[in-house]
């Protein structure tokens, strides 16, 4: 047996490929921008729902601290929507025809940057609003217990911190993968073994 035979085995695989007609290609290519527009529209609708709910809270809730917390949360939702718009409307470079490893690296870098910056543009804007809102809910109670404090402040804080840490770790793993792309095979093995060990040790 030789590699000619293994290639023949592979190329004899029936891919059941039926090319699209040119008319269909033209139509689908024109529809592509509509798909992106609809996806963005869904994100904006979700954002506006949050803004409307918290604007209703401003009017409905009884104490000022809850009203201010609601206003800050609605403002944070608007800020995050603006960030989403700004980031998704940046023109993407025509990268499909670049060398495969460069394309892979560019994808990983984009993903790493997005994960690494989640804390600053996605989580941080919501912290003041949620902090005031949680504090207001505590103040509303007759008796503040340790349990209610943990539930109203500790739990949201832990969720925020957990999301931030998960994203930071994912960004670090991507950075190691990016670094490994330009190393010699023996170094790649060492870098990836380090990564596997760290994943095993992670809780």
């Amino acid at each position, binding site marked *: 047996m030789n590699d000619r035979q293994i290639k023949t085995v592979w190329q004899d695989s029936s891919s059941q490929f039926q090319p699209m007609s*040119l008319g269909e290609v033209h139509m689908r290519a024109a529809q592509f921008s509509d798909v992106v527009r609809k996806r963005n529209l869904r994100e904006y609708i979700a954002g506006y729902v949050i803004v409307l709910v918290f604007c209703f809270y401003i009017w409905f809730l009884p104490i000022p601290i809850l009203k201010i917390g609601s206003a800050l949360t609605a403002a944070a939702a608007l800020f995050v929507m603006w960030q989403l718009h700004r980031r998704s409307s940046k023109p993407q470079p025509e990268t499909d*025809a670049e060398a495969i490893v460069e394309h892979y690296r560019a994808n990983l870098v984009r993903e790493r940057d997005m994960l690494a910056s989640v804390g600053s543009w996605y989580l941080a804007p919501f912290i003041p609003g949620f902090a005031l809102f949680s504090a207001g809910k505590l103040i509303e109670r007759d008796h503040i217990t340790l349990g209610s404090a943990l539930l109203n402040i500790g739990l949201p804080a832990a969720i925020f911190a957990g999301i931030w840490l998960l994203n930071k770790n994912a960004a670090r793993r991507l950075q190691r993968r990016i670094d490994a792309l330009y190393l010699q095979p023996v170094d790649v093995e060492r870098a990836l073994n380090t990564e596997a060990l760290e994943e095993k040790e992670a809780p």
Partner: protein
Amino acid sequence: MPCTQGDQDKLFEQAMAQFGQALGRIAAAYEADAERRLDLLQDLQIALWRSFASYDRRCSLKTWVFRIAHNRGTSYILRQKRMALSRLCNIEDYELPSNQPCPESLTDLQNAKAAIHQIIDALHPPDRQIMLLYLEDLSGTEIAQITGVSAGAVATKISRFKALLARKFAFSGDAQ
């Protein structure tokens, strides 16, 4: 010089005639599910047609088509299988499952295809692409040009792939 839509159409038809079946196999190597594979295949064809608007003939049609197809495949993996990415490995780290009988015969075609897919599916995009281009019978130089990996590194990785196949099958791994 940018292509007109007529040029795009001609290049697309030429690419489909020459590399259509290879595109089908590439899509199968990125997505096992038949329905999702069909979507990926349509996405590949639309991306290819759109890309011809900027095709400047500085590289061959073959290089262009394989770059577009594999780059789309990479984006697909990163988008659809983000969680599975940490389970993928480089060819240097791949080990055949120890519970499989070895060596097997290439005369059992289904078995041979399944074994090749098993290795390919476990690889990170750059190594997966090198092996797929090797299986499509591209030369080391062509693979290096398409991937951007040095010819020496390509040869080392293909050699490792052949060694795995040799352990799996009664396979000599002769020169290309």
